[in-house]
């Protein structure tokens, strides 16, 4: 059945090769969702004890790196993305009853709120690999649209 389905798609199935060291680290972290890969970085939302936070894993060292000022106990992360170099992260989060889009610069641990115009509610975000542009889903008047932001 599987082979027939593969042939219907005009290709042969191939095997994925898991990376056990980092997968073991993710297993230990609890639940994990919304993965975003840079060249040697994995940004992910991890949940433990009923709370979720953003984690950035250095895939060459197999360890998370500090993200001072990004995670807040009263914020709920929705979506995260990382630039290829791991220097910038874009985050959609719920905080104090609103949903906001922020850009985090890791070298200076700064968080910048990005205003969405015309107003709308953001959901999933993706940062371009060079960190100079992002695309975000925005809900306006019952319709999901995509906004693009140029970043300095």
């Amino acid at each position, binding site marked *: 059945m599987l082979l027939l389905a*593969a042939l219907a798609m005009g290709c042969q199935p191939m095997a994925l090769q898991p990376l056990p060291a980092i997968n073991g680290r993710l297993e230990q972290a609890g639940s994990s969702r919304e993965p975003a890969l840079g060249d040697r970085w994995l940004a992910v939302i991890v949940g433990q004890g009923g709370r979720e936070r953003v984690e950035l894993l250095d895939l060459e060292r197999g360890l998370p790196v500090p993200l001072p000022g990004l995670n807040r106990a009263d914020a709920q992360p929705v979506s995260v993305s990382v630039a290829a170099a791991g220097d910038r992260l874009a985050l959609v989060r719920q905080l104090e009853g609103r949903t906001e889009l922020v850009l985090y610069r890791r070298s200076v641990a700064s968080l910048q709120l990005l205003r969405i115009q015309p107003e709308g509610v953001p959901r999933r975000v993706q940062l371009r690999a060079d960190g100079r542009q992002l*695309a975000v889903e925005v809900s306006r008047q019952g319709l999901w649209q995509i906004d693009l932001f140029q970043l300095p």
Partner: protein
Amino acid sequence: MPAPNAGFGGSNRADPALSGDGRWLASVIEQGGTSRVILQSQPGGALQPLRHLGPRTTPHGSPSLSWNGRYLAVLASAGERRLIAIEDRQRGSLLRLPLPGGSQPERLSLAPDASRLAVQLQQQGRRRVQLFSLRALLEPDRPGGIRELGGGLAP
């Protein structure tokens, strides 16, 4: 700034994915009761054809592009099974990647250089991200369109 809608202004549009060089934007359009990935050149938003990711492989979800847009990875369907499909736009081929039994893929992310793939799986009610190497399956797609040559000297 809203992205050019490519004639899909009245449809829900989700899951944006930009290539690293900024020349390509993939997204998922809800139309005709299903979700289908589209690819647009930037700027301008002209639609680009996809050779393999047609209606027979819908519903699509969670597209992801490599640095120069050579590879487009997406959650797709083959029969009733969800799987990961990667269209190589340079070679015009499709790589089809089934997942371990019992797990449902929900989200994916392709590394900019196409060396790795991260997949969010749901298994027994639990969400977890797993990482896979693609080095044995795909040529790298690095900035500037640089491709590694195989062993020996180039002609």
